[in-house]
């Protein structure tokens, strides 16, 4: 067995969460998909298996984790982790440490004392389509290129096992297609074993040999891929795992009110350089409009221009109301918090929206009462997302602009966000969402605009959904 891990107990320092009795065995070329909702212990499992949890983070791990016969839980074994394991983390911006692609790839080779660093680095950058960008600043790479770079850095030193921690979390469907391609060609195709941690199981079900469902730190179910049937998929879905493509079953809303915002020949961009030109766009009262497009196509720039953070390059934005109230919610909820305690954020909302609003918040989220003295930044990802959206709601905007509001959310949290959006539409607000998540179209959109080749045009819901769904295949 290439991988023989038996984690009987694993725990972060100072955390109450405990991972228990997780066993994993993988031979050469075998792949396992570990699924489960947020907070079920997927990432803790990877940290425990690689020895990071007990050797670096002062956590506790009982059991063993042998890769190629080396127990990574022992300090001596942990020194070998880089030779044995390649790792691709969830967010490339939290993994890439060096300023250029060349330095990023050669970093691991230098650390491990390779002699053919230049040759290997150039070869792998070529394989992953990064030739010509070796010395470009990382900031100038697209989201897909950054993801490719993290995979290239994980396999350049030819480790026998590759670990993927939610590799599709921050990328568009075309990025997912590339991840799948490189997984097929350079991981399973080259006989490497792999562990993929994901809650969007649908992207990997056809690429792995086994599926493991984690819940509350224990293995709830495991199946060889040949035994995965409809009943098992339903079971996974019940446990917050995204296993299916979204289906459009509802009709677009017909009760939308008057036009409250429109753009005429709007060109948006940075420093006078156009990103999207000639945008004719409109949004009505009580309407959810979804703007779709690949990473880097200009969706966020569009929202920021509407919000007033960026000036239009040309054209005009017309609000058909006296005091337009637009509120932009960024992709990262941490940017939204100004105060040191949750309570102070709520006090702020109390001043703006009154007692009834605060009472409504507590009735919708009773768990908030136990977290009032906490820093908003220390809440869980789902809680931070919820609080950011609630702050936006507290400012009583007529148009809410949401930038990728479903990124990194499991099915359960995703449904919470959908519910939240439906609720505020009922409060006679309009929503503009920038997203590349097909579920958003299926569950929320009244109308869809597509950004492609520096232009934006309205498309039908069916077309938009198909466009995104076809992207990753």
């Amino acid at each position, binding site marked *: 067995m290439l991988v023989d891990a038996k984690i009987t107990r694993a725990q972060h320092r100072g955390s109450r969460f405990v991972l228990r009795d997780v066993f994993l065995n993988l031979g050469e070329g075998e792949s396992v998909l570990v699924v489960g909702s947020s907070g079920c212990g997927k990432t803790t499992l990877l940290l425990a298996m690689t020895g990071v949890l007990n050797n670096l983070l002062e956590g506790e791990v009982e059991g063993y984790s042998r890769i190629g016969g080396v127990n990574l839980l022992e300090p001596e074994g942990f020194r070998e982790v880089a030779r044995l394991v390649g790792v691709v983390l969830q967010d490339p911006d939290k993994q890439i440490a060096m300023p250029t692609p060349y330095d990023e790839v050669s970093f691991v080779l230098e650390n491990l004392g390779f002699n053919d660093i230049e040759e290997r680095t150039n070869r792998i950058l070529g394989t992953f389509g990064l030739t010509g960008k070796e010395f470009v600043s990382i900031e100038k790479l697209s989201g897909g290129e950054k993801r490719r770079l993290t995979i290239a850095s994980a396999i350049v030193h030819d480790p026998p096992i590759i670990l993927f921690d939610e590799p599709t979390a921050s990328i568009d469907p075309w990025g997912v297609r590339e991840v799948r391609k490189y997984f097929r060609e350079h991981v399973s195709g080259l006989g490497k074993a792999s562990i993929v941690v994901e809650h969007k199981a649908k992207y990997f079900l056809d690429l792995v040999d086994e599926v493991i469902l984690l819940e509350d730190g224990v293995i709830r179910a495991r199946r060889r891929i040949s035994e995965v049937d409809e009943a098992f998929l339903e079971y996974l879905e019940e446990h917050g795992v995204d296993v299916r493509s979204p289906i459009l079953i509802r009709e677009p809303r017909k009760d939308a009110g008057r036009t409250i915002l429109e753009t005429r020949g709007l060109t948006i961009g940075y420093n006078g350089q156009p990103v999207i030109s000639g945008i004719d766009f409109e949004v009505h009262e009580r309407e959810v409009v979804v703007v779709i497009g690949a990473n880097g196509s200009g969706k966020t720039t569009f929202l920021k221009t509407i919000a007033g953070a960026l000036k239009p390059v040309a054209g005009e934005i017309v609000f058909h109301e006296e005091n337009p109230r637009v509120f932009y919610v*960024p992709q990262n909820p941490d940017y939204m918090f100004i105060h040191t305690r949750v309570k102070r954020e709520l006090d702020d909302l109390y001043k703006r929206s009154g007692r009834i609003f605060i009472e409504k918040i507590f009735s919708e989220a009773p768990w908030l009462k136990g977290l009032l003295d906490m820093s908003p930044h220390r809440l869980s990802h789902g809680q931070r997302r919820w609080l950011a959206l609630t702050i936006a709601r507290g400012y009583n905007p007529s148009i809410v602009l949401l930038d990728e509001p479903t990124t990194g959310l499991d099915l359960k949290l995703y449904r919470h966000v959908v519910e939240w959006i439906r609720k505020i539409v009922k409060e006679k607000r309009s929503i503009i969402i920038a997203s590349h998540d097909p579920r958003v179209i299926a569950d929320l959109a009244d109308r869809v605009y597509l950004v492609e080749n520096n232009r934006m045009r309205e498309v039908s819901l069916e077309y938009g959904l198909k466009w995104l769904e076809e992207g990753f295949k």
Partner: protein
Amino acid sequence: MPRVSPATWFIYSLIMTALAFTIRSEIALILPAIPNFILGLILSLRKKYYLFPIAFLLAVWALFLNAVLFVNYGEPVVVVGPLVIRSNALWATLIVTVRIMTITGAAMIFVSMINPRELIISLERQLGLPKGLAFALSLALRLIPLMTYDYHEILFIRRQRGYRTKLIIPTDVIGVLLPLVAVGIDRAYWIGIAAELRGFQLRKRRFNPKYTLWDLLVIAAAIAQTIVSLAIVFLH
């Protein structure tokens, strides 16, 4: 321009800055100040780096105003209406200006001749910079643009929420620093883990100094300027 190692330019700038700070005789500093400043200015303008020349002009203007306000005595030199500029104010401006010229000149040469990535590699290989420090510098290069983006996002959200974007009182600073630090810590935590998983602890010190004739010439130029300046100090 022949290839001079970034570490050599670093040493050169360090020597010039040390000279500007340690030599008390301003006359002795005129020799390094003028050629360094002119060379630095030419290189900066060629690369369209305007920050240092602008900062220099502002600093000299501020020095002059300061001198006119506080040490304006001696023989009158310039009379403009009611304003009389006296010899001591001009002399005081001049003697501090030569120091600033030396430092700014060296800084402009340094900034124009290196790129930050090459500098870090060079400092590690040529000067034996410890691996932890070299990694921290590389990481800083990587994180500065990310943190700049974070900062602008945070300021926009503050504006949107009706808070000041000019940081005047401590709560303003806390309101910006808190999210900046929270996002930064999370990023640093995962980058640290990723670096360890890619064998950072096994990394060996890469001290392999190789200097070319051009490197030696640049260092010789710095030493020559130092010797001449010191000689002038002793002769005076």
